[in-house]
């Protein structure tokens, strides 16, 4: 991890020096830079997610058709993927690459802020560029708040409480917004029994749990990390919008009871959705669903 972490800590410190020794600005700019560098991977992941979504009805049909024959099912799935030019690993690989980088980014902020003697001691070995000593320790105050500490809601003064609540609320709101905008519209009912697709329930759960979980992180971790969460979420939303993959319809859609789940307004009654239009997964739709 140090191979990624130490350059990150060094770059963050350089940005801190360039940006008038303002840690918040450094976190904002650094998060945006990392997001931009990861853009090709994010785009690939979004594209793959969209394509997978479009293949879902066909895959569901296959699962039912070859219920007792796993081998045949796998063969047919691969055939379908080939037919549509879709690589199932293309969605996972960007995630695998991105995950350690985002963990390193998160840890770089923790290490650079160095709240405790041990963390400050560790920092000495992480600065790879000569001359950065002059900035150590980084100024960790922002609007009268200590960036290394969790928000003091109720325990601090009025300003601290208000800013603390606002930060947590922003983390929850931007996480929810990003999730909603970047998640394809819930899959329609697929089985003959009219139950919603299993993935849809899971997606709904994640849409509720993730913002709450990040809100909990924001309450527990340092304020610097909350700023990172907010900037990262906003950058993710902007990326999705710029790529034309922001699913604004999701913002206002509500879960529907079994048998009534729809895609693009089509009523589904215990019937699989028709096969998606062939191999056009690369084009952005801004919420327009092609599986009609």
């Amino acid at each position, binding site marked *: 991890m140090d191979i990624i972490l130490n350059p990150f800590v060094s770059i963050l410190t350089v940005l801190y020096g360039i940006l008038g020794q303002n840690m918040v600005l450094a976190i904002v700019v650094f998060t945006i830079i990392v997001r931009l560098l990861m853009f090709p991977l994010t785009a690939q992941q979004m594209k793959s997610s969209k394509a997978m979504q479009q293949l879902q009805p066909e895959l569901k049909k296959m699962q039912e058709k070859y219920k007792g024959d796993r081998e045949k099912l796998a063969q047919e799935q691969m055939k379908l993927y080939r037919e549509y030019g879709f690589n199932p690993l293309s969605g996972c690989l960007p995630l695998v690459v991105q995950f350690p980088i985002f963990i390193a980014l998160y840890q770089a902020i923790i290490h650079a802020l160095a*709240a405790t*003697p*041990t963390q400050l001691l560790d920092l000495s*070995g992480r600065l790879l560029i000569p001359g950065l*000593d002059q900035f*150590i320790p980084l100024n960790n105050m922002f609007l009268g708040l200590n960036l*290394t500490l*969790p928000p003091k809601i109720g325990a601090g003064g009025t300003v601290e409480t208000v800013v603390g609540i606002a930060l947590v609320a922003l983390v929850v709101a931007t996480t929810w917004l990003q999730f909603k905008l970047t998640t394809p519209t819930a899959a329609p009912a697929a089985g003959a029994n009219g139950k919603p697709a299993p993935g849809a*329930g*899971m997606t709904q759960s994640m849409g509720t749990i993730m913002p709450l979980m990040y809100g909990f992180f924001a309450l527990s971790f340092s304020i610097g990390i909350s700023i990172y969460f907010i900037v990262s979420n906003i950058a993710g939303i902007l990326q999705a919008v710029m790529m034309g993959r922001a699913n604004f319809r999701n913002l206002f859609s509500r879960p529907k009871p079994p048998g009534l789940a729809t895609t693009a307004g089509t009523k589904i009654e215990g019937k699989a959705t028709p096969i998606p239009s062939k191999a056009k997964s690369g084009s952005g739709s801004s919420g327009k669903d092609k599986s009609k």
Partner: protein
Amino acid sequence: MKSTFAKRAALVAALMLTLLLFTGCVGGPSEVSWGSLSLYGSPQTILFAFGDRIVMIDPLDGNPIQLRDSSGAARVDDTGNPRLWEITSPAGAATKFFTAPIPLDDDTLLVVSYDRGIFEVDVPSARINNPTGYAVNGLVTGYSLMADELLYVPLSSNSMTARTVNGFGEAWRLTTRQSNWAQPLLVEDTLYLSSLDHSLYAMNPESGEVLWEAALGGAMTSSPVYADGYLYVGTFGRKLLKLDPQNNGQIVASYDTHDWVWGSPALVDGTLYFGDVSGWLYAVTDDGDTFTPVWEPVQVATRAIIATPVVTDQSIIVGSRDHNLFWVNRDTGAVEITRQMQGEVLGNLLLIQPSEENDLSRDLVVVSTMNAAEFVVAYSADNGERVWVYSR
């Protein structure tokens, strides 16, 4: 239904795993620090502050001191076992003691905690008189200094507070641009504070008025050393500096180091001994406007040396984060003895010499580690022989 529940449970578990990955290997702000050792009382005992507790140890054998009543009989607890001299934080493990206790009077110690203020400890009963603590409005990582009825407490919250010993009300407060982790130093009528904000402050100890502030180009985590009218301090600017306090802290001499200097230098017989956070050890003499090395710097350790070295007639003894304790020849800089320990050596070292206050027959160097199996270890200062270990 069961299947849905299982899937959601799996989802929560996956998210929790993500949380663990996110937070892995990163400590929180209240992370435990290294232990502090200090000598106390007559006959002499060792006070060891670590985490949320303070224990009293016999320097002769490393055993915890038993509590005794006025007649000298051992006190026992409800189960009939001897009661040991041990203080635990009233707020539980959440509170940390980063610094050594300070004697207030014959029977009272002051303990400044990381985030719960100041506690008064009744020594004969090993009890805290004020379990809620006297608030200091800040986090305390650095050692406090008591002098002339005032307690000077350096705070991580970008300030230093001076408290009256009677009631601990605030007499004055100095605001700095960064945390303060170094113990203030009082020389005659001037109080000095080296700060992480790269400045050394000289103050009126009674009013807190800043007499001068010297920007030294690097953060400081340790107190300056005063000798013959000059101050010596190590900085994160990779320098040991000699300052003239009569001339607003002007830099008189400077010596370049390989890495940050964390601890105060030891000044013995005109030579300054100190280490840096890359494990280099230095010995320099003050030649007016320059420092001259006694021998070329030696990288004795592979990791940080942060505590002030202990200096004996023949050796410089230093502990390192690489788990080792080194005896280095004062004249040549050669490492003569190495003792490997189970934990990182980051806390201060104590040199205890035989005296009327103890029953020791030889000089002991006492060191603490971050490992509970070797919390405190005593070695013969002369030959490195291990004498005793205090563990939990």
